[in-house]
């Protein structure tokens, strides 16, 4: 018996149709992707490498502290010393653009899914599908629709990396304490306002975990995208494979690792209150508190009377 369901040809027909019908759209997207990539690439590639390294180290100091600053400086210097700097910058630009787009799409989708059970039920299998389909498979239609270059790399990356963003956003928002949301409702807040003032802020840790995963998945996909001419570190890895060049493969591969660690630590630090920036912020907030308290005390004194000073009895006054 020889039954073969021609799934392949259906899908091919579908993509052909897509290409014919929406070629203008894909062309526009292609231009947009290329433009975004060039812009980000320009930002990192224009200054001398050492200046960029110094700036990244400074940012690392603000985000997590001196240890991370030192580590990132060493990592980036390593990339520079193995002559992978330009490739790394290309890859980074690709990751940032794709991850940015993935975040911009996945967070609203996640919010929508959190607020609507039907949407959630539809999105869940779709996201499972997108994330489990072997990464290479995306590249084929992407190439067809966007031609060779960075654009197919970006689109494949963004589709591959989107799923955790959607999932963790939905999870985070659904996980917000129901009573707190009810409090918003009970005081007559509009659902959009509850979303903005209560649900999203409280779901932030989960959403940030999603962003972190998006970036990590993007990076892994970007290397694969090197195979289709997206360039960057992935290009060198592909070249090393075809030429069986162990040295080059490892130099590019280790550079990917450095980028991965940097991106992971940066995104994981958001909202965690580490580093210099948070310390300054805390100091500023404490000062503001103290000022308000002082003003408040002054007001009380003006009013006069036997009222005890609020700082004294409460035990927690101004800190």
């Amino acid at each position, binding site marked *: 018996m020889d039954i073969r369901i021609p799934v392949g040809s259906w899908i091919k027909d579908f993509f052909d149709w897509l290409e014919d019908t929406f070629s203008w759209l894909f062309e526009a997207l292609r231009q947009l992707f290329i433009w975004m990539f060039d812009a980000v690439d320009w930002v990192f590639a224009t200054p001398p490498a050492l200046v960029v390294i110094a700036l990244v180290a400074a940012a690392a100091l603000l985000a997590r502290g001196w240890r991370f600053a030192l580590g990132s400086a060493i990592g980036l210097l390593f990339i520079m010393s193995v002559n992978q700097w330009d490739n790394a910058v290309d890859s980074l630009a690709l990751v940032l653009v794709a991850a940015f787009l993935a975040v911009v799409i996945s967070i609203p989708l996640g919010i929508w899914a959190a607020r609507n059970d039907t949407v959630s039920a539809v999105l869940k299998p779709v996201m499972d599908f997108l994330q489990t389909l072997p990464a290479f498979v995306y590249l084929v239609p992407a190439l067809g629709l966007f031609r060779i270059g960075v654009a197919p790399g970006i689109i494949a990356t963004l589709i591959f990396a989107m799923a955790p963003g959607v999932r963790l956003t939905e999870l985070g928002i659904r996980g917000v304490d129901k009573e707190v949301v*009810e*409090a918003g409702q*009970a005081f007559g807040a509009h659902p959009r306002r509850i979303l903005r*003032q209560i649900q999203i802020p409280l779901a932030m840790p989960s959403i940030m975990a999603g962003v972190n995963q998006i970036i990590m998945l993007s990076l892994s996909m970007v290397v694969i995208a090197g195979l289709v001419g997206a360039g960057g570190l992935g290009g060198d890895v592909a070249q090393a494979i075809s030429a069986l060049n162990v040295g080059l493969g490892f130099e590019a591969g280790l550079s990917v690792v450095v980028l991965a660690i940097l991106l992971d630590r940066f995104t994981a630090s958001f909202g965690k209150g580490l580093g210099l920036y948070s310390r300054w912020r805390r100091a500023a907030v404490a000062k503001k508190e103290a000022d308000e308290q002082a003003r408040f005390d002054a007001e009380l004194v003006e009013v006069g009377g036997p009222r005890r000073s609020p700082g004294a009895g409460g035990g927690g006054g101004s800190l």
Partner: protein
Amino acid sequence: MNDAIALKAEGLYKVFGRNAEAAVDKLRAGTPRDQLGGATAAVIDASFEVMRGEIFVVMGLSGSGKSTLIRMLNGLHPATTGSVEIGGEPITATSPKRLREVRRTKVSMVFQHFALLPHRTVIDNVAYGLEIQGMGREERIARARKVTEIVGLAGWEEKHPGELSGGMQQRVGLARALAADTEVLLMDEAFSALDPLIRRGMQDQLLELQTELGKTIIFITHDLNEAMYIGDRIAVMRDGRIVQIGTPEEILTDPANDYVEQFVQDVDRAKVLTAESVMRPARAVVHTGAGPRAALTLMRDEQVAGAYVVNRDRSIVGWVRDRDVFDLVRKGSTDLTPAVKPDHGAVPADTALADLFIPSLEAALPLGVVDHRDRLVGVIPRVTLLAALGGEPEAAATASPRPDPLPTEMVDQLLESAVGAGAADAKEAR
């Protein structure tokens, strides 16, 4: 529309699950709650009215539908059928926009687990309701500060809720609801998560605030003592139905059925019952105008060793002892005043039994009970007090107080031997 009614619920049903409406029809037709198929009937046919300035407590065991009921009152749960009106404004069957308007201006809520916004400071939490109402920052912070101070949290404005103890967090929750300045306050087990001492403090504070601000409060609890302590009226819920609505004393002394009776069995009666509910008519009472003879005669007839003295309007003046009156009569005096002692020790009618013991021990006569205009409305003999505590107020009727009056013969002798003006008085009094 009666102005005195703050909130009115009529025929409220809430069924969770499929075919809710069909389930309501079945319930109306008399199907028991546990035979509805997949649907859960959380509230069944609840109707009640809450007066302005009243504390209306809803009490019941876990799962009896209290939370569901209170959430229907501000539309957090849409009612399956039935209607709710707050200040004449319908909550059920209204547009989401209108509903939000009502929630902003007419009804606010305090939650069991506080439900504060953890990422905002105390003051911003308190000001939240005002923020939603659209008030400018300066103004709402100023108002929030006042309320924060009222609930005793001055000095904590810039902290985050996570830095506060449970009791303080709930004060913030209370302040947030108070700051919104709505007529009606819904409180769902607001004090249940607090430990007993803090809880008692919060209850007292709530009562104090209520007296001061005159809010209408609907309070949910599964703690009977709490219900009895703060409630003006109590609705007892069981399996989704309201089985009795009444004052704490009515619930206690006249339970509608076995369920309520069992429920109230272990309540601390001394804290719930008041002087008014156990007092008996005061029989040994003389007017200031009556002469010593009349007083003595009365005391002899009532077989008591003393009597309360009141004005024409029954407002209490003091009390007299039979021996002192006896001396007056012997001296032929026609004025009772020299014998009147002002330290009558009468208590207000709403004093809890627990607070009657000491006054009762100190009083020479059965403890007097006065209303808010100081009028003597009854007395509580010690034996009545004991009987009420035992849960058998009727027992006191059979056990009458045993005073230690002057021997009747001695008094008779005096009254009969008396000559002159006093004799006429005595006759008249009899």
